[in-house]
């Protein structure tokens, strides 16, 4: 049997005892979905509301799930969209960030591109780069090979573990370690006169 198939999803889609089929789907995935929201929400009530909304949408749209991806991947997308709509939009509106599709990003032309340039040119980053030290840091980071730079950013900005960086970037843990070690050497030479010692390439307890 195709490992991607879920027997209860198939029974639902075939119209076989739909209530029982959905009950089983709910029981199978309740803890997974709940954990997803529990990591992001503050109150029990909010977590439960988000779980309810997710399964409500799953129920409403399950006929449209074509099995082109794993059911779990589709379930993640539903959960993430519920989260985005009901929580994240409230908490991140203070930032002028929005979610747009890649296509939209890729095809943004003329006016949109001009707006993006405007944000970049007049935005908070440029304010910061007025400071010589920040500009030197920014330049030094941009001079690193892209994958190395990203590893440093993930390690420092997000305090990610080696294995998490490896998973996010699609590389091995050893590659992450090597990137961080080399980056530290390069940045030490380049920035030693401007910044205090860095420790981002040092493994921490339970880092893996």
């Amino acid at each position, binding site marked *: 049997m195709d490992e991607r198939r879920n027997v209860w999803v198939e029974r639902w889609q075939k119209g076989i005892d739909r209530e029982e089929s959905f009950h089983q789907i*709910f029981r199978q995935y309740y803890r997974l979905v709940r954990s997803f929201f529990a990591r992001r929400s503050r109150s029990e009530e909010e977590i439960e509301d988000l779980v309810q909304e997710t399964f409500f949408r799953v129920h409403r749209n399950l006929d449209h799930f074509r099995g082109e*991806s794993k059911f779990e991947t589709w379930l993640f997308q539903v*959960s993430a969209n519920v989260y985005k709509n009901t929580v994240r939009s409230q908490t991140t509106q203070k930032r002028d960030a929005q979610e747009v599709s*890649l296509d939209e990003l890729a095809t943004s032309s003329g006016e949109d591109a001009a707006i993006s340039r405007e944000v970049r040119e007049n935005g908070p980053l440029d304010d910061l780069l007025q400071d010589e*030290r920040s500009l030197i840091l920014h330049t030094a980071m941009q001079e690193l090979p892209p994958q190395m730079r990203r590893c*440093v950013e993930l390690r420092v900005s997000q305090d990610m573990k080696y294995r998490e960086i490896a998973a996010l970037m699609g590389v091995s843990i050893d590659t992450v370690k090597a990137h961080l070690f080399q980056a530290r050497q390069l940045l030490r030479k380049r920035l030693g006169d401007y910044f205090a010692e860095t420790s981002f390439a040092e493994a921490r307890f339970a880092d893996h």
Partner: protein
Amino acid sequence: MELGVLDKPSFEESLRELAARRLAAEAHPTPEDLAAYGAGELATEQHERIKDHLAICESCSKLLLDLAEFERFEPAQSISPADAQAEASWQRLRERLKEEGGEADVERLEDTRADEPARVLVPHPSRRPVPVWQRPAIPWALAAGLALCVVGLGLRVGSLGRQVGKLSEPHLNISVVDLVDVSTRGERPEVPVVQGDGVLVFSPAVKADEYEVEVVSAADGSLKIRPLRGRPDKDGFLTLSIPPTALPAGKYSARLYGIENGQRRRLLEEHPFEISSAIP
């Protein structure tokens, strides 16, 4: 670099600040984009762009790590009934599904109108229920309400009288199409087809001072209905009425722009739809 030099700022703190500033000017990928990235399905340029974003965005990074957890998950085939919390939650969901009907509106309408000829209602298959908190009591009250809540869209003015008349008739031949932001849904939507009079209903997910709606040809991107500016009604809906003669049969795209400070225009949503010449 020497330790203990007090006048040197921390490398880590400075880098975090730089990342935060960059992130403030960036757009987040959608969950669908993240899933495509995780599956290695993106073109190189898009793939690299997501990597750059992940490097500075903790929120999206954590979403992607969760996606990996979802994909690793193997559901148990037999589940202990001892999970009282899950069962209590199921009962709550079950009640809601019974009350609101979790399935397509088509089925519900057919059920409630079983004693009437099938041709009486022509609910379009692509019409999906909008979220409960955005939905008035019944769909046709919504349609009538929308027709009355004129939001300044020019096309509406010309067709309003006729449309209200049509809406008040028991035999409807009007396509009311909910255009919920694609990025807010976890599935790939079907392209709605408008037959006869069409009413496109936007539920803008992103708030703006005002909105503009325009319709372009899907084939060549040429402008078919010039940008019309308006504000949502009290329920948060923007509607665009399309009389049957306004557009020939074909494929189109409705674009929703947010207007800020009276002039800055930002594309918020784009919804493909079809005009069908076949009027049942």
